[in-house]
């Protein structure tokens, strides 16, 4: 079953007077449980695509279905629900809240989804990312790799079926990056659809499919 189905996705921005075309007619389907990398040079439209697939942004034209549901024309209030229930986000800069403990950072999405905060849930996620001993530490006490693991655990707390990662290893050394990819592979084996945007071709090749984007079009990996 296709968990993501994008047809003819276009995205144009205004930059001052200039009209910038970030995506011009992207067609893409991703099956449930796939591990996909999106690669391409800077400015090719990777992040624009990622934002649209993650419902952070709406396409100028085209059709997008997430888990069989059309997303087009939905307002921010409905997009929030889709993000909350279907998608987990991982960012290059981790975005952990410095005053919250590791456990609280992981539980943050629960605050917004209105789910009760259960320490067993948090612990099982920490076990999954191998940081059970760090529950009560603050982000400042962690290494970069550990911070990204916490961010991944946070992305998983609402049990999403899609994990979207934008340059997740961009701030990490190669050994740590390898560990993060191993974690993605584990999650993929557990049935989560993992989509990673990256510059790093070598790491991208560890995914089951590599989608290459150039000048706003998918040129390989359809």
């Amino acid at each position, binding site marked *: 079953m296709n968990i993501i189905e994008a047809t003819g996705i276009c995205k144009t921005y205004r930059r001052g007077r200039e009209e910038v075309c970030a995506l011009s007619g992207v067609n893409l389907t991703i099956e449930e449980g796939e591990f996909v990398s999106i690669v391409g040079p800077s400015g090719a439209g990777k992040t624009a695509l990622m934002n649209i697939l993650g419902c952070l942004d709406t396409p100028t034209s085209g059709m997008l279905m997430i888990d069989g549901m059309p997303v087009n024309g939905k307002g921010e209030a409905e997009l929030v629900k889709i*993000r909350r229930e279907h998608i987990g*986000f991982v960012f290059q800069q981790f975005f952990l*809240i410095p*005053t919250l403990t590791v456990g609280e950072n992981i539980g*943050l999405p629960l*605050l*917004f989804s209105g789910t009760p905060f259960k320490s067993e849930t948090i612990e099982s996620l920490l076990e999954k990312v191998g940081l059970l001993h760090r529950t009560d530490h603050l982000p400042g006490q962690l290494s970069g790799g550990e911070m990204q693991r916490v961010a991944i655990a946070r992305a998983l707390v*609402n049990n999403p079926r899609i994990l979207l990662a934008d340059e997740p290893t961009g701030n990490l050394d190669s050994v740590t990056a390898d560990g993060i990819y191993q974690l993605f592979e584990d999650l993929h084996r557990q049935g989560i659809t993992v989509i990673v945007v990256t510059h790093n071709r070598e790491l991208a090749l560890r995914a089951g499919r590599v989608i290459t984007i150039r000048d706003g079009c998918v040129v390989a990996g359809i």
Partner: protein
Amino acid sequence: MNLLSFAVKNIKRRKGRTLLTIAGVAIAVAILFSLLSFSAGYERELTREMDSLGFHLLAVPKGCPYEATTLILHGGVIPKYLTNEDLVRARATEGVVIAAPMLLQQVIKDGIPHIVYGIEPAVMLPLKPAWKVDGRFFTENETRVMVIGSTLAEKENLAPGSVIPFGPSQEQYTIIGVLQPTGSEDDNFHFLPLADAQRAFGKEGLITAIAVKADDVKHIPAIAENLEKVPDIQVVTMAQVTGTIMNLVGSARSLLFSVIVIAIVISAAGITNTLLMSVNERTREIGMMKAIGASGYHIAILLITETLLITTIGGIVGILAALAGSGIIEAFVRGMVPYAPSGSFVSFDPFLIGSCLLFSIGLGLLCGLYPAWKSARLSPMEAIRGEWE
């Protein structure tokens, strides 16, 4: 973890800034609380002081009656006099229970003016039931004796039995009694038997004012009207005096209130600015929260909770500070108003405390609204990129 504890952790992130903002709110609320409590306390104390005077109206020589009255209340001397005939007429007026004559004179000793009251104990003492005297009070026909106020006794180091040279011809006067502290201007005066004061100052048959007590407060206007039929007499009721003083204080009060309005506006602008700054700094974080499932409503509630925490803490600190520092503020206010009653203005009024707390909560809502609205409508994608229009 809940939204409240999250908000608490957020405002702890910039401790210095949070503390400064709290201090700003605290100062505004402290000034507001002090002024409101001064306003209520002033009127209360003024009424109490007027009641403790024991008389309802004052008959004075024609001239400027208010000036004369305030002078008499504070112990000033006016160069116009009533006569014993006026006193007799006042006593014959219907509804008058007590008409007490007084002669006010001033003597300068070591450059400091001293106020001398010539009074008739038989009619004055019933007007002043609160007076307690150490030693004894004089009787009508005694001479060269006096009773003095407690503050005066302390300042001049006098006690019952002391003998001092007094009056224009420096006669030897024996102090036979010292009034226990009354908390009013009486504490600063020399009291002499009326006839002796008239003799000593060469004002035989003259009196400065007549204090009148009515049998019923309802009869005060009628008594005033009857007394004013006498050509030399003008009447001032204590209600008029209270009203006049409140008017005078009113202008000082408006000045103070404009100060507080400015303080509040500055403080509100400061809070709003701080919040906008903290939202600005956290733009990307807000974007992240939206990406992981926070709606605009969540973000707005979070920011308003943070603001309310700051202003409510500020309000509590401000009220506590105002209560603790009430003495200093009162001294400042006393210097600004034309007539200050002797009692303390500031009181622990739960209603006032509640209103000031409500005010600080309202201030928080007002200041938090714009930053909250602004961040709530941020697009998550733009916010993550750190864009902020």
